[in-house]
């Protein structure tokens, strides 16, 4: 039996925005005290957020999740072998970490600039590599 465990540390430390990012990426998940990843290849690890997936076939064993580190940040961890996202695109620890970081920060920017009455110009939103950019605009009375 071969292990495919991969782990990537992110700078995310806000659980609410991380969960919002997972929602936006189309993942379902569980939160709890006693959750463990469990892959076909024997990887088992305690996590704080267990991704239960968007595809019953590939995520049936709950192979990946996020665990909270001692410094308060979250790491994506688990066995990513053969996993795909809601659009059928391959998911790796790195891509999950990058997308979760982008979408988590995006959710935070939307909320905080939204409080200043800024609205996102959805046509301006584009992602190139690891970088996500968009514009926010408002009219000041």
């Amino acid at each position, binding site marked *: 039996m071969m292990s495919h465990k991969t782990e990537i540390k992110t700078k995310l430390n806000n659980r609410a925005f991380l969960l919002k990012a997972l929602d936006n990426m189309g993942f379902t998940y569980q939160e709890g005290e006693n959750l463990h990843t469990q892959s076909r290849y024997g990887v088992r690890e305690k996590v704080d957020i267990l991704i239960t997936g968007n595809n019953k076939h590939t995520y049936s064993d709950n192979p990946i999740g996020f665990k909270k580190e001692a410094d308060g940040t979250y790491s994506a961890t688990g066995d990513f072998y053969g996993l795909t996202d809601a659009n059928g695109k391959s998911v790796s620890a790195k891509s999950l970490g990058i997308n979760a970081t*982008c979408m988590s920060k995006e959710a935070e920017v939307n909320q905080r600039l939204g409080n200043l009455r800024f609205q996102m110009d959805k046509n301006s939103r584009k992602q190139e590599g690891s970088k996500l950019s968009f514009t926010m605009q408002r009219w000041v009375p």
Partner: protein
Amino acid sequence: MPYQKVTVVIDGATGSLSIEGDGFKGSECNVLDQVEQSLGIITKTEAKSEKFQYVLPDLLPNQVG
């Protein structure tokens, strides 16, 4: 009514966030705090004529007629 626009760039690999536009430019970890302080929160405004925005003085007896 002035229009304001800012461009937001997030690097998912490094976790960095930069915001630029309308006289503001920032890329430090507290950039959102800086934006809030720089651009500010718009408080409620009322669209009513200027003459109704002030308390009118009481009329003196000889003005009543």
